């Protein structure tokens, strides 16, 4: 029997052979159908959905050998001279953010039959999205076939504050090859690493001979082949605040999944096979996965002398944060009631759908090029330069379209070994993480135990608060101290309490490292704080809303915990309005008792939070904006659009200032060779800091244009008006190409480059309410409705902001009810697949009321503040508070899975009875 397959993809016939274990997904991607996205590889997420003879299937779990004699349709085959109705609907209603799930969503949605919205959501069970919270996706599908054509937003309409479509939409809905792994230079080699199966061991000996002997293996690297330089994988600007405790390859492994050796081969299959043939002689060391035990120092995880910036290596303490204000003793003495409890937060994973992937090669000029799915191309370039002793100019790092990051790509996890391999072999090398590697060998949100003690007066005045967090940073300390700082800083800072203290201890254990994750520690602290406030309200018999109103910081307050003068400041303030909106939307009545109906109980709960816009003083954004000879503008910025739409928002800012439309602002981003420096995409900074840089640069360019035009037209510049195509006075006008030409003749530059940091980071505030239903027989918590108001300053693009809010909220829903990396005693992760680590699906999302409260901030561009992270913080505490209101049972551990809720209710009942 011949193993040649004959099949048709879209309108093209193919004849090919393949390895018999190949999935249809790989076959299609190898043939160039890059719109078929590789995400879970287990049939759970639907990103690889194609039609086999018109029936949608998950191509990742379909044998390629069965494609024989079949017709396959991919996203690339949907267009027939124009977009298909479903593609058009997704484009019109913007049913995407990063776009990585979009082709699969469209291929699925095009074949769905449903009678109701609920049924539609249920039918979408096999399609996961991590960005949107599904709202825009559902809307797109429901409105498919209707005429939703949008009136173009003209320059006269203005650009800021308008729902300008995300400019990458057409590429996304058609499945264009825009992501990192969709293109590679010829002669590509593939890298895979052998990962440790022991939580803690020293490598006595490592034999790579058998692996090297396999045909197709190009090189094998161990710790003996790399420079021994300690560094942090965290993508931070210099001076790097994190411990230098990681090595490209090391003679010691510190968690199950840690790097042992790297193989570079012609195919991933060969590389994987060769990894299996590497013989490692381990000296097994005792291990520790519990941070409290780890602090006793019986097992030392970082005993190597080369590591530095570790707070107390002998006790496995990577870092420590101490913040104080007032005098706790004095404060607690004033208290009529003291409440003290411990809150337990799990390690959770980002689940950005596009995995970490990078490709490195030498270009024709001898520059080392790194194409990578990163949030921090400039930090990556600096680190690579340090690790390999190469001048920065000889390294170019750039990112194509990103398929989500949520903080996990504010790390340098793949680029270093790719570069090592390219330097050693001279050839292009790609390293792509599998989904299992994403779950077991990248980073999680820090799991924490937070002890919180609050003293309060009978009237509800907070008088003292003491918070102690033990933060599990895993095997490496990347982001440990900075994340743990925010755990105390924001939740405590949100309340006007005279005496506050916070201690955050960042502890190494032999588990997967923790790192940056949307909310960056504030999420954990917010759960503890907002839960405890409700506990206090219950004990004092005060309305929890009133208790908060009484104690929340006001527009006049300063956040002084741990600082004489703080750079986190209240710029604009509309938290009071947020509370108003949310309580109104949910018809909140503090006197209404919770409903009970058989075994169902219903309740409502609330939570508040704040998060800063960027990092004051250190988050540097440089931009360059020019008027080109053709009369169009070019904006160059090193900033990274993770998929949120920030590139579109930045263009809106420039267009607004220059009196034009986004279409006339060409943008080039996130390329160390082509764009000026930007710290990257993290800390909710892009709109606030890079946006302000764009605003300032565009203003300067506008002045320059008017000044040159004034000279050319011999009028006063105050009489001139800049519009889309020309500069005009009362009587004459000069087209922009004419102006550009005139400037060249005059030797004047129409190019503005500037740098911007913000002295202050304005705080964004948010308030969220959730209505829940608890099935008291099973413990299942179902969220019926959520309302969230975000004090955003100004929404540069309301639809994009709304997307951040819904996406963040739904990510918080997963944190509240479902997500948890589960570890065995060795620290091995037991649920490293999307089938066993469930993120919210469309049917989990309740109706959402999102309010963007606009009150211009004095420091942000057009008054805008950051919105990327804050949406995640409130969901879990609000749900927990609602469960408590409904059942009288307080869950202090996340996620609130049914068994935990049921156990809590049962122990509660029994304790009540006894």
């Amino acid at each position: 029997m011949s193993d040649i397959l004959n099949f048709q993809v879209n309108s093209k016939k193919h004849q090919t052979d393949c390895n018999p274990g190949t999935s249809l997904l790989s076959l299609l991607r190898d043939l160039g159908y890059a719109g078929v996205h590789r995400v879970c590889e287990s049939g759970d997420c639907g990103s690889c959905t194609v039609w086999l003879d018109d029936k949608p299937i998950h191509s990742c779990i379909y044998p390629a050998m069965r494609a024989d004699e079949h017709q396959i349709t991919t996203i690339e085959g949907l267009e027939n001279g124009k977009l298909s109705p479903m593609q058009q609907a997704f484009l019109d209603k913007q049913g995407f953010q990063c776009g990585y799930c979009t082709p699969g969503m469209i291929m699925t949605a095009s074949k769905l039959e449903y009678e109701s919205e609920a049924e539609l959501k249920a039918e979408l069970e096999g399609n996961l999205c991590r960005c949107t919270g599904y709202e825009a996706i559902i809307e797109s599908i429901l409105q498919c076939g209707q005429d939703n054509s949008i009136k173009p937003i003209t320059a006269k309409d203005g650009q800021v504050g308008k729902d300008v479509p995300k400019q990458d939409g057409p590429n996304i809905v058609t499945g264009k090859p825009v992501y990192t792994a969709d293109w590679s230079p010829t002669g590509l080699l593939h890298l895979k690493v052998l990962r440790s199966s022991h939580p803690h061991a020293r490598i006595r000996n490592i034999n790579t001979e058998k692996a090297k002997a396999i045909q197709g293996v190009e090189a094998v690297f161990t710790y003996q082949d790399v420079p021994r330089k300690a560094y942090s994988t965290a993508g931070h600007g210099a001076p790097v605040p994190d411990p230098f405790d990681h090595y490209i390859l090391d003679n010691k492994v510190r968690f199950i999944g840690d790097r042992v050796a790297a193989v570079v081969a012609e195919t991933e299959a060969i590389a994987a096979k060769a990894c299996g043939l590497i013989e490692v002689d381990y000296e097994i060391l005792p291990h520790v996965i519990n941070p409290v035990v780890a602090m006793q120092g019986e097992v030392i995880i970082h005993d190597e002398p080369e590591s530095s910036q570790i707070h107390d290596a002998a006790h496995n303490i990577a870092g420590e944060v101490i913040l104080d204000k007032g005098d706790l003793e004095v404060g607690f003495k004033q208290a009529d009631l003291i409440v003290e409890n411990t809150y337990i937060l799990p390690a959770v994973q980002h689940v950005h759908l596009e995995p970490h992937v990078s490709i490195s090669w030498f270009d024709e000029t001898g520059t080392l090029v790194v194409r990578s799915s990163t949030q921090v191309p400039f930090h990556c370039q600096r680190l690579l330069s340090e690790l390999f002793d190469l001048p920065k100019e000889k390294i170019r790092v750039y990112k194509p379209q990103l398929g989500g990051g949520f903080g996990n790509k504010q790390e340098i996890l793949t680029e270093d070994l790719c570069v090592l391999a390219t330097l050693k072999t001279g050839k292009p090398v790609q390293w792509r993480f599998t989904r299992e590697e994403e779950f077991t060998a990248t980073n999680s949100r820090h799991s924490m135990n937070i002890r919180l003690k609050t003293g309060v007066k009978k009237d509800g005045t907070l008088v003292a608060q003491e918070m102690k967090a033990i933060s599990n940073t895993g095997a490496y300390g990347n982001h440990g101290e900075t994340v743990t700082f925010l755990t105390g800083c924001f939740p405590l800072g949100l309340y006007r309490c005279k005496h506050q203290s916070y201690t955050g201890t960042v502890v190494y254990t032999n588990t997967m490292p923790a790192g940056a994750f949307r909310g960056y520690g504030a999420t954990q602290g917010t759960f503890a704080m907002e839960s405890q406030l409700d506990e206090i309200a219950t004990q004092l018999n005060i309305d929890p809303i009133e208790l908060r109103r009484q104690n929340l910081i006001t527009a006049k307050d300063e956040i002084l915990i741990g600082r004489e003068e703080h750079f986190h400041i209240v710029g604009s303030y509309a938290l009071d309005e947020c509370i108003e909106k949310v309580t109104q939307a949910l018809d909140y009545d503090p006197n209404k008792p919770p409903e009970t109906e058989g075994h169902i109980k219903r309740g409502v709960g609330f939570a508040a939070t704040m998060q800063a816009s960027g990092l004051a003083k250190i988050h540097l954004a440089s931009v360059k904006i020019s008027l080109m000879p053709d009369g169009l503008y070019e904006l160059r910025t090193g900033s990274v659009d993770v998929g949120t739409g920030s590139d579109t928002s930045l263009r809106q800012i420039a267009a607004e200032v220059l009196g034009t439309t986004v279409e006339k602002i060409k943008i080039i981003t996130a390329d160390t060779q082509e764009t000026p420096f930007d710290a990257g995409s993290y800390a909710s900074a892009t709109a606030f800091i890079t946006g302000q840089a764009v605003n300032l640069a565009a203003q300067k360019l506008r002045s320059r244009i008017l000044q040159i035009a004034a000279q050319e037209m011999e009028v006063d510049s105050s009489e001139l008006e800049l519009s889309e195509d020309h500069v005009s006075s009362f009587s004459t006008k000069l087209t922009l190409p004419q102006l550009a030409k005139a400037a060249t003749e005059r030797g004047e530059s129409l190019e503005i480059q500037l740098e911007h940091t913000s002295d202050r980071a304005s705080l964004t505030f948010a308030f969220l309410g959730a209505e829940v239903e608890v099935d008291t027989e099973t413990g299942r918590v179902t969220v019926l409705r959520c309302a969230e108001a975000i004090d955003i300053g100004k929404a540069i693009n309301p639809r994009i902001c709304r997307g951040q809010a819904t996406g963040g909220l739904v990510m918080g829903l997963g944190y509240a009810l479902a997500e948890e990396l589960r570890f065995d005693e060795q620290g091995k992760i037991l649920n490293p697949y999307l089938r066993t680590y469930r993120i919210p699906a469309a049917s989990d999302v309740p109706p959402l009321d999102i309010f963007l409260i606009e009150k211009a901030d004095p420091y942000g561009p057009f008054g805008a503040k950051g919105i990327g992270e804050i949406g995640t913080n409130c969901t879990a505490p609000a749900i927990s508070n609602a469960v408590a209101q409904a059942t009288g049972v307080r869950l202090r551990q996340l996620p609130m899975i049914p068994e935990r809720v049921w156990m809590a209710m049962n122990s509660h009942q029994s304790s009540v009875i006894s």
Partner: protein
Amino acid sequence: MDLYNVKTYLRPKSLREVREWQPDWNWLAGGTWIFNEVQPQVKTLVDMQQLNWSEIELTSEGLSIGATCIQNDLLDFSFPDAWTATAALKDAVRELASFKLSHAATVGGNICLALSASTFAPAMVALNASYEIWRPNTESYIVNAVDFQTAPQQTILQPGEVLRRIKIPIWNLTQWQTSFKRMAVCTAGYAIAIVVTAYHPQTQQVKFGIGGSVKSPRLIEFDTIPIPEQIAGEVRELPLHIYIDDERGSATYRRHITQVLMQRGITELTAGIDGKRRY
């Protein structure tokens, strides 16, 4: 995902072509499971598609479902109105996972995989199904659905043996009203308990097919509609060690949920309520 170690792909047209079964061979029915995990031990895939075992046959004796029947074909099949219990089979398809999986996944594949979360196992048990097992070199034999699985992912099948068809006698199909209920840690994902309830309105007989929570599927029968205490009593009589106790759910909780789903199943069937399948 790609199965790197697979070197050979066989497409037998009859069982005679695979007499010499090797330890590193694996049957390939729909492929939705085998391609969802790394399979380092598998060198040869034996594709069952060309065996043509995908029939759905209705006879005077009952229903016969070929092992490689695509689940969606079962869902779309028009059964005689009187065969009310086929609703449980359709619910088993609906509750498998995404509808896109059931375009490829087979009925027999789900049964032979013997995952504790199998949606078909408790349905087959509740309908008193039996399985016809073919062997490469000798006679076939029949085993009751309830005796097929011995532990999670373990069945009585010996190497080279294969499920040929599922048979459900007609008296288990007609008149019986069924309900399918499942509970997972999250709203989707592996079930931690599944209860398929079959209720005969004339005779008042009740059968519960239990899966998900137990190491191998169980059948609990009542001659009359059980009162809650009877259900609790039956559940309590089963030792705790037959329940799965792992990171997805403790044995105690799984037992509790099994009882809740049994109670809800029979309450709804006797009251004529079309309740939820998922909790």
